[in-house]
Structure formats: structure tokens, C-alpha cells
């Protein structure tokens, strides 16, 4: 195994193609699962409305709009009003799914999310589309890699990042069924199917996708399949990594995190987000308080990302399968050194 640092130089990891998945995988844009599910739900529930900010296309709402033009509330390019209107629609007895590019929805309307939605307990479903670095080459203005930190600090708001189409479908249904504010973080970056047959998503529940006793890899969203690939790589080296999909960043499944700390004694987290304040921080808060073990938090290391596709940037910031595997060997080394 190479000893290359996890924040590898660009020339070491410039290929956008998966480095550790030689077989051809079908990659999915989870926005399609989102849009199809929204239409299914809207068929059954006449109170469901979609609200957007001139983002009909990017939110994949064309089908919804064609079917129910009057139930698609487009406020134009005005995110503060977008979220306020969503809260008002909920007050008026409707079930609004408020859809906008994640970076603008969260950054531009953060106070509306806090005050009008979460603090007011409005039954609004916020859908942050093309989250993370999905807009890759468009640059840091369009990246949403601060949203976990911002939103998980807001009380009474569920924050969910599904990993694949099936989990997206279930998360959208769960959000609709849940009475209260929800933020769904939905990428457009292609991902393979990762959740197993018969999988059941629940808000606030983490799911073990692979058993292992040497180290635990915790990821969500677009990083889950990379973590699974990392576990495969580690297995070839005789390391058994547990892999946990943690779609709900708030409320957190503390029991599953503590079980991982207790059973494996070393944790790596990986997320399409800044290392500050996101999934890794949430996990660390639990671990440090109850079961301290060596940890490594992988994410964007406190910088605005340079130009490149999301896949390129994830690789560059040490979140290729290889990079995650290297982080795992590092925490295992620290675990052994401490024992």
C-alpha cells in the first residue's frame, strides 16, 4: 500500500473515472429518483406542491409542472422569498417541497430556513439540488460544501443526504411522511446503486452496509460507494473495514456510531463537504464524548475548490477509494500504537 498523503497532489489523482471499480457500473443521477417519487406522492396527496426559484429544469420538475402547472409555484430568482413562501404554504395547509440549487437555497436563505421553517416548525421539505461539488467546474460559488455545518446547527431540522436512487426514493417519501422541517441534500453526480435489496430508510438511522472489525468507514451521499470500494481495497490487504452509510446528519444515530467506535476502535469519515462542521464533525462529537478512538475526517480541507469535476475534486481531496483506504490504514496504525 502506498504511503502517499491523503490530500494527494493533483497529478496523482487527476482521473475522474473510478480508480478502484474496474467493472462497468451503471451510474444514476438521483434527481430522477427524486422527481419520479415527488410525482408519485403528488398523485396521492393533493396538498403536495413544488416551489422553486426558476429551477424547474435543474430540479427535474418538468414532469411535475406538465402534470400540475398550478401546483408548481415558481417565485423566480429570489431564494429568501422562496423559503418564506414555502413556510406560508405550509401554514396554509399545503405540503411544500422547496427546490433550489443547494448552494443558493442554504447560503442565500439561511435565516429563512432557521426562522420561518425550523424555529416556526413549518412542515416544509427543503430540497438542496446539485449539492456538494456537483457543479464542479462552475466553481466554488456553486458548490454547497458548507450546508451540513450550517444546517445541522439549526434545531428542529432533519438533514438527510441519500446515497443512491433507492435511498433517494425512500428519503423523499420519509420526508413527506415526517411532520416537520426536513432538508434533503440531492446530488446530480452519477452514483451506483449501493443500498441492499430490501433496504429500509428511516430518518435518523445509520445503516451498516458491510461488516468489519478493524476500522469503520462512515460516509453518506456520493461518498458511500467510494467507502465501499475502499473497503474492498482494504480487504485485499487483509483489513476488514465496517462501512456505515449515515444519511441523516441530524438527528444523528449515536448508537450506531458508538458501536463502531467500540467494535472497531478506529473511524474514518468521508463527505462531500468541508471537513469543518459536517458529517465527520458530527461523528467526532459523539465519539469524543463517549468512546474516544483514533479518527480521520476526510472532506474538503478548508479551501475553495479549484476548477474540476466533482469526481476529480473528490479524488484530489483524498476521497478516492484509495485515499479513503489510506486514511483507514493511518487510523489503524494510530489505534495499534495507542494500545
Amino acid at each position, binding site marked *: 500500500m502506498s504511503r502517499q498523503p491523503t490530500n494527494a497532489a493533483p497529478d496523482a489523482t487527476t482521473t475522474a473515472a473510478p480508480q478502484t471499480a474496474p467493472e462497468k457500473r451503471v451510474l444514476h443521477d438521483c434527481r430522477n429518483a427524486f422527481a419520479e417519487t415527488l410525482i408519485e406522492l403528488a398523485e396521492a396527496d393533493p396538498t403536495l406542491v413544488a416551489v422553486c426559484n426558476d429551477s424547474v429544469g435543474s430540479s427535474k420538475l418538468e414532469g411535475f409542472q406538465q402534470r400540475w402547472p398550478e401546483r408548481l409555484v415558481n417565485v423566480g430568482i429570489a431564494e429568501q422569498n422562496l423559503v418564506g413562501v414555502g*413556510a406560508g404554504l*405550509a401554514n396554509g395547509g399545503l405540503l*411544500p417541497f422547496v427546490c433550489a440549487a443547494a448552494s443558493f437555497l442554504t447560503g442565500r436563505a439561511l435565516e429563512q430556513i432557521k426562522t420561518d421553517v425550523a424555529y416556526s416548525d413549518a412542515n416544509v421539505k427543503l430540497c438542496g439540488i446539485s449539492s456538494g461539488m456537483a457543479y464542479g467546474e462552475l466553481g466554488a460559488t456553486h458548490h454547497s460544501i458548507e450546508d451540513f455545518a450550517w444546517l445541522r446547527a439549526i434545531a428542529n431540522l432533519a438533514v438527510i443526504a441519500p446515497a443512491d436512487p433507492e435511498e433517494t426514493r425512500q428519503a423523499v417519501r420519509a420526508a413527506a411522511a415526517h411532520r416537520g422541517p426536513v432538508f434533503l441534500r440531492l446530488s446530480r453526480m452519477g452514483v451506483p446503486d449501493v443500498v441492499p435489496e430490501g433496504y429500509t430508510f428511516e430518518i435518523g438511522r445509520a445503516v451498516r452496509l458491510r461488516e468489519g472489525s478493524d476500522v469503520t468507514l462512515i460516509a453518506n451521499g456520493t461518498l458511500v460507494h467510494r467507502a465501499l470500494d475502499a473497503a474492498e481495497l482494504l480487504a485485499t490487504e487483509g483489513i476488514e473495514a465496517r462501512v456505515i452509510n449515515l444519511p441523516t446528519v441530524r438527528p444523528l444515530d449515536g448508537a450506531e456510531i458508538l458501536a463502531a467506535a467500540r467494535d472497531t476502535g478506529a473511524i474514518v469519515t468521508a463527505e462531500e463537504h468541508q471537513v469543518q462542521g459536517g458529517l465527520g464533525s458530527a461523528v467526532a462529537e459523539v465519539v469524543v464524548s463517549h468512546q474516544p478512538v483514533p479518527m480521520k475526517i476526510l472532506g474538503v480541507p478548508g479551501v475553495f475548490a479549484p476548477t474540476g469535476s466533482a469526481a476529480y475534486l473528490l479524488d484530489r481531496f483524498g476521497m478516492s477509494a484509495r485515499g479513503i483506504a489510506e486514511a483507514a490504514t493511518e487510523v489503524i496504525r494510530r489505534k495499534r500504537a495507542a494500545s
Partner: protein
Amino acid sequence: MNSSRPSAQHLAGIARRIRRRDLDMIYEAGAGHLGSELSCTDLLVALYFGELQVDPDEPSAPTRDRFVLSKGHAAGVLYVTLAEAGFIDPAELATFMQPGSRLNGHPDRKLVPGVETNTGPLGHGLPVAVGMAKAAKLRGESWRTWVLTGDGELQEGSNWEAAMAAAHFGLDNLALVIDHNRFQQGAAVADTNDLAPLADKWRAFGWHLHELDGHDFDAIFAGFDVARSTRGRPTCLIAHTNKGEGISFTRDRVAWHHRVPTAEEYAQARAELTEVPS
């Protein structure tokens, strides 16, 4: 429609009582926004006792009228008005801003019946009200949405996002009442970031515009009737008011935005607000 609205004289008595209780409450709590509350007291009285179809026994009735106090810092007078209207126990007003009280310095809908949405940061009420009015339209229901903003508050850009949307959606079931008391926290609005020409701005944004004296109940109700009878677009009622109205030494004085009276000032103010038999 309120065909039998109470007389202006009757409402003036209620308004005096509310102003007096509000003054007491702020004096007892040692905090509050007296000037901002006195300027919108008559507007709140007109809404709660002559306009809004709301029921304290069923504060969440689906087809109730919605009222949003966007200038959430005037929570004190909202609480007194809600108590007067039967939504909360008047005895509870003594807990205003005390530790553990549900009567926060800015209203919390989860705690206080009759509050529709939480406000405090400015520029939040109108967008939420637009959503409410749009919901009534989508549901085919006839309830109306009323929102009260300050004037300085209109410096927040979110209002203008909402103003465009309300006109675009043709929300004639929405009325905005602007408490145009001409002062904000630190200075006159005109000296801070002037809104003039305010009426022209709303007309340009596609709203029906009507100006009224915000301390004259007949004028206020005439404005409400204008809002009710306007079709195809929302109505903006610019209510010309005085900050600190009702107490001689607080009127039009920016210092009273959130000043708490001394014992001497309190005694004088209370004497001025002593109820006149109606």
C-alpha cells in the same frame, strides 16, 4: 366581511387599555419596544376587533384569517392584544420576557396561540404571508392574509422579492399594512436609507395602493374595505402613524424605539393613558 364593526369610540377605549397595559408590561419587564408598539396599537386593535376572522377557542382553524406581525419586536403589544382578544390569559402578561415565560421578546408560534409564524429578524413576514395567500388561492378558500410591517423594515430586500411575487401571483386575498411611523431604531427612516417615494414603489411593483391615517379607526376600516374589494392584485395600505403615539413625550421621538421609562416618566405616561369613560 365585518358588516357590524365596533364603533371607533369603543375601539379607542380598547386601544387605550392596551397601550396602558403595554406600558405597564414594558415598565415591569424593564425591556420592550415601546415606541414601535404604540405606533401600531390602533392598527392591531382594528384588525383583531373589527376585521380578522379568528377564534381564540380554535386558533388553528384551517380557514381562519392569517395575521403576520412582521415587525416581531412589537411582540409586547401583540401579546396584550391577544390577551384582550381572549387568546391568552391576561394574567400571563406579567411574565413578559421573564425567565421561562412563553412571552418572548419576539413571538413564538409554538408557544403562543394566535401567532402564525415566528418573526424578529426583519423582512420575514411578507414572504411568509405571500405563501399563505397563495395557499388559500390553491385551495380555493376565501380566508384572507394580513401582514403588518414596519417602514424601516422595508429596507430588507426580501420584502421586494415578495412584493414582486405577490403581484405576479395576483394575490388579491393579501393585504400589507405598513406602520409608517417614519423612524427606525437609530434615526429617521429618511435620514437612514430613505424609502420615498414609498407609495410609488408599491404601485410600480403592481400593488393597489391606499394611504390612511393609522390612528383613525374609520380611516383604517375604509382602507381594509379597499383591500377587500380590490381584485386581481394585492393591496398595500400605507398607514401614517406616529412612533410612540398616545404618550406626549414619546411621540415621534426615535429614542423611544426601545427605551424603558423611568419611574417618573412611567407615572406621567400612565396618567396620560388613563382610561376615558366611553
